[in-house]
């Protein structure tokens, strides 16, 4: 197969994933944290599709290839459901406190 090799896609996917992880750890705004989590999920999708295309696309491996592509559809659907719930929770917090910074969420500790 011509063009970008599989390793290129996996490297990009890992870069996206690590960016997401680092972002979740260092950022303090829940919406930005949430965007970083979405970045992690997109890294997953990229990895699945790259594997399906490069390793499991021969005619003898239709089932294996389809499995990876199916997984991507499910990941996207679940990510959408998570957005709905997550933004709802963030809205509820904003109504109570007018401030959504995660460092200010410190009622529960000990």
């Amino acid at each position: 197969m011509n063009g970008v090799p599989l390793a290129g896609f996996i490297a990009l996917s890992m870069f996206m994933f690590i960016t997401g992880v680092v972002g979740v750890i260092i950022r303090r705004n829940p919406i930005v944290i949430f965007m970083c989590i979405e970045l992690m999920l997109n890294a997953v999708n990229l990895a699945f599709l790259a594997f399906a295309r490069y390793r499991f696309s021969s005619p003898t491996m239709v089932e294996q290839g389809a499995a990876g592509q199916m997984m991507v559809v499910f990941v996207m659907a679940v990510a959408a459901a998570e957005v709905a719930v997550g933004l709802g929770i963030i809205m509820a917090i904003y109504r109570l406190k007018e401030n959504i910074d995660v460092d200010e969420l410190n009622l529960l500790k000990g």
Partner: protein
Amino acid sequence: MIPDIEWISVAPVGIVAITGMLALIVHMITGNPEQQWTQKVTVLGLLTSLVVLVATGGNERTSFNSMLSLDRLGIVAQLLTVLSAFIVALVSPSYLEAKKIKLGEFYPMLAWATTGGMIVCATRNLLVLFVGIEILSISLYVLAGLQRGSKRSEESAIKYFLLGAFATGFLLYGIAMFYGASGSLDMSTALSYWSHQGPDERVLLSLSFALITVGLGFKCSLVPFHQWTPDVYEGAPTNVVAFMATGGKVGAFVALWNFGDSFGGAGRFVALTIAGLAVLSMVVGNVLAMGQKNLKRLLAYSSIANAGYVAVTAATVASALQTSHVSLIYFLFGYVLTTLGVFVVLMMAAKDGEEPSTLDDLKGLASRSPIAGFSLVVFVLSLIGLGPVSGFLGKVFVLKDTLDANLQWLAVVMVLNSIFGAFYYFGILKSVFSPEASDSRPITVTMPQVLSLAICVFGVIGSVVFYAPLLAHLGLR
């Protein structure tokens, strides 16, 4: 080719999912804030599912092109998940009313969380596992934030949500690596790929093992992925926590066990990694519980320690390569009923809509309500693992398996931790039977509360008294 569909093996899950939808419709039609009908529909649906499970749970089976594999463990775990949802739905009305939570979404969400938990129990396919875990988790995020006017409830919801979604990312990346190595999403095939493939695939599989361990560790609240547990337990409404700690955990525990079983043959490192997490969870859970004055946080650390005991069984099965479900089934049985019972007692002891938050608030509970006090004795003994209670038998089975698997050091750590844990559990009993009461008003006990306490007490003691016929009925001996 479309494979034959065995509807009967998904019937219990389907009934619970449909119950959730029906409950939502009923809530919309009746629209009354007390939700009596919503609650009745949910209780009835969960009961139907329980009956179907018991009636059809006779034999192990795989269906849906082996995407669904119901073994003994899966069937019993599904039973426990539904049972905990049933009891929570039974005792919730008075609690929700006292807390002024007028949202009818509670019962449908509970049913859907149960659906997710049941799906997780019944599969070794990573796609189905992922979807099940997400159905369970997303419902639980909503439930944790159910008390919209309370900053604590909302704070617990966002902490649970952000950390849970973060963990999902790790789980998914692990699944992607597994897929890259094998082209399959069925984790029971891990071993054959491990032994037949080249070094590249082994790197991918090792990476997938590490990432999935992180993801499942979060869901089971194993140390060092446990930080969310005490905060969420403290902030979320108690009836939600009661389900989270029992029905919500069973699925994650079974997934961890299946995961250890599937990856076990890859090498000693699998068992040792899980055993390491188990030791950390037991030690950190018990040590942090020692200094706790807050009851719900104490129970959270206790559940972290219990997750450690479950991880011991997962490490055992990963190293022994002969699969015996008995120890985990018995342990889960005891854990679920005991924890449920403790939370029901906590909800009973609530006054003016505030459940007891510290150990001092429990003082004199035995004189205020003898039923609550004495059932708590049974539950605490079961948590310690002392006397003719299921907690004792569960731990004995786990220890025996650990010795059989040549993990003597792990058995020693577990015994030491059980002894250590006894101290703070006895602290609970000490306050309950303390003569000076924080409040002398007797507790009015409602019918559903008595019924659920009776189920829990009977289960905890009965599983020891009738253990031979029970095992025979489950087909384990």
